[in-house]
């Protein structure tokens, strides 16, 4: 089922949680709401669910206007940040809750409830834990119970608030893949909230980047990463090295350091680079003159990460390079080197 958010805004007292914003989500799509805390992403999710009422605007599920429809009639699955499981009920009863809560006329009979819950528990690989209480499960297992509970009512829209926030990295990666599979199998439309850009980029068909109650950009992950709309989106999506200076004869200069760039009217006097968009060399070249000192070297997975400092840097820079490159250069802590950007990002002055 498609979701259409039109001109929705929300204030809490004097603070504006959401500026009027609109968003269209196609049926079967998986959309991540990404932003720092206080960006309004959770408020937007709760408004879609019906847990919060907007001050203005409308919400449509398909052709149905649900703006004034109570949360219990919206038929959305909602997975809460800390799962909000019913702690006095067994795993089985937690999952069965939505079915048992139906009015008698719509309620499936006991055998049918049992069959459906069993089936869901098998899908989330918790069939052996049916009689346990939530407190006896690990965080990842509790998360899966929360998902099964939300899916038991066969929602066409699944909403997840920071679904993997409280889990350790390994479990998180595993659950992400699993959620992706589930999404493809059940075909529901999902919207999830996260502050973790990696999670948003990996899981979503499209990412909605938010800040200060506004939508900054809506884009497919690959496009988003390649062409961020503005400086906020760029710096929020990954680690950023920043070079600021003054324009002089086609160069951006800061003390002894400079980079060749053409002065564009309206452009801020800074350029930005990702850690992998820098090459470490043993001598300067004609495009850039960036001397630096190696402060720390840490091998992380397939890359070696260098932390660099220099007088002209306001914050230390991060550079990642391949292992063989690192061996060829023979760098150590305290070594001096030169940097050459392979790509520069420039944004309008904000």
């Amino acid at each position, binding site marked *: 089922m498609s979701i259409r958010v039109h001109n929705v805004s929300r204030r809490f007292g004097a603070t504006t949680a959401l500026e009027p914003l609109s968003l269209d989500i196609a049926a079967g799509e998986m959309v991540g709401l990404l932003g720092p805390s206080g960006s309004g992403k959770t408020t937007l999710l709760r408004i879609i*669910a019906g*847990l919060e009422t907007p001050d203005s605007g409308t919400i449509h599920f398909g052709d149905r206007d649900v703006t004034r429809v109570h*949360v*219990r*009639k919206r*038929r*959305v*699955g*909602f997975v*809460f*940040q*800390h799962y*909000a*499981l*019913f*702690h*006095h*009920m*067994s795993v089985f009863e937690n999952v069965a*809750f*939505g079915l048992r*809560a*139906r009015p008698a006329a719509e309620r499936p009979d006991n055998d049918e409830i049992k069959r459906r819950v069993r089936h869901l528990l098998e899908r989330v690989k918790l069939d052996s834990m049916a*009689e*346990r*209480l939530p*407190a*006896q499960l690990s965080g990842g297992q509790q998360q899966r119970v929360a998902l099964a*509970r*939300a899916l*038991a*009512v066969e929602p066409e829209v699944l909403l997840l608030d920071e679904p993997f926030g409280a889990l350790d990295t390994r479990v998180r990666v595993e659950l992400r893949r699993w959620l992706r599979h589930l999404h493809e199998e059940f075909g529901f439309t999902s919207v999830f909230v996260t502050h973790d850009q990696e999670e948003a980029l990996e899981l979503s068909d499209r990412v909605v980047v938010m800040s200060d109650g506004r939508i900054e950009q809506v884009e497919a992950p690959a496009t988003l990463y390649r062409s961020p709309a503005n400086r906020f989106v760029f710096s929020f999506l990954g680690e950023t090295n920043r070079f600021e200076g003054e324009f002089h004869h086609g160069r951006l200069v800061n003390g002894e350091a400079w980079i060749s760039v053409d002065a564009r009217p309206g452009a801020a006097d800074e350029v930005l680079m990702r850690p992998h968009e820098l090459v470490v060399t043993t001598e300067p070249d004609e495009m850039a003159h960036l001397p630096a000192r190696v402060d720390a070297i840490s091998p992380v997975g397939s890359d070696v990460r260098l932390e660099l400092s220099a007088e002209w840097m306001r914050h230390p820079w991060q550079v990642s390079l391949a292992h063989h490159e690192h061996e060829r250069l023979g760098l150590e802590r305290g070594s001096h080197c030169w940097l050459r950007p392979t790509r520069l990002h420039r944004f309008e002055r904000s």
Partner: protein
Amino acid sequence: MRARVLPGFTLSLGVTLLFVSLILLLPMTSLVGQLAGLSWSQYWAAITDPRLLASYRVTLLAAATASLFNALFGLLLAWVLARYAFPGKRVLDALMDLPFALPTAVAGITLATLYSRNGAIGALLAPYGIEIAYSWLGIALAMAFTSVPFVVRTVQPVLEDLPTRTDEAALTLGASNFYAFRRVIWPHIRPAVITGTGLSFARSLGEFGAVIFIAGNMPYETEVVSLMLATRLEEYDYAGAAAIASVVMLVSLLLLLAINLWQGRFYRRLHGGSFPG
């Protein structure tokens, strides 16, 4: 003995036991000492005196009414304090403890003045034939007043502990308000409500100061057990007083013990200590 990381076990346990001995065990021993002067038949006669039996009935009836009323009213107060923000919430929260701080005699006299036939509230009820002061209803009222904090203060933290997310989860799953309360909130707070009500009941059984001013103290009708006890003391019948005291104490002790055992079992289950099945 195993070495302990936290210091002061011996000293603190020693001081605790000393205090328990001085404040609880010593008076209880002297109570038993008083009872030793009685034969079994004398003891039985002392605790089954008809006037005393009538007072058991009045006390139990009033205490049960008071604690049931408090279960409902206290739950409502705790709910309001735990779930909503409103101006004056801090004041209301502080007022909750007033019955503990106020001398019970003051409460009794105030209630008696308000609810007597020509009191501010009593005058309103008199035309309908409802008499509160000097009837068992007055006793229940005084008991309810002095013991309502037990319910509020046991339920309130448990409710605050239950995140609103849990109710929201029930609602997103399609539950009606009543269904969500019955299956999600009530099981969570039930032990606290029962504990609070039990404490309120135990306190009401022994209430003296607030009750005697509003009870009227008519033999066979509005005399409470604690008044009978005081009467025995005034008559220098220490053994008889001790006999009554032993009954009150035994009932209270059994009640509190039952509550504690039951509550312990519930919390072990909730926090995953035991694997059912």
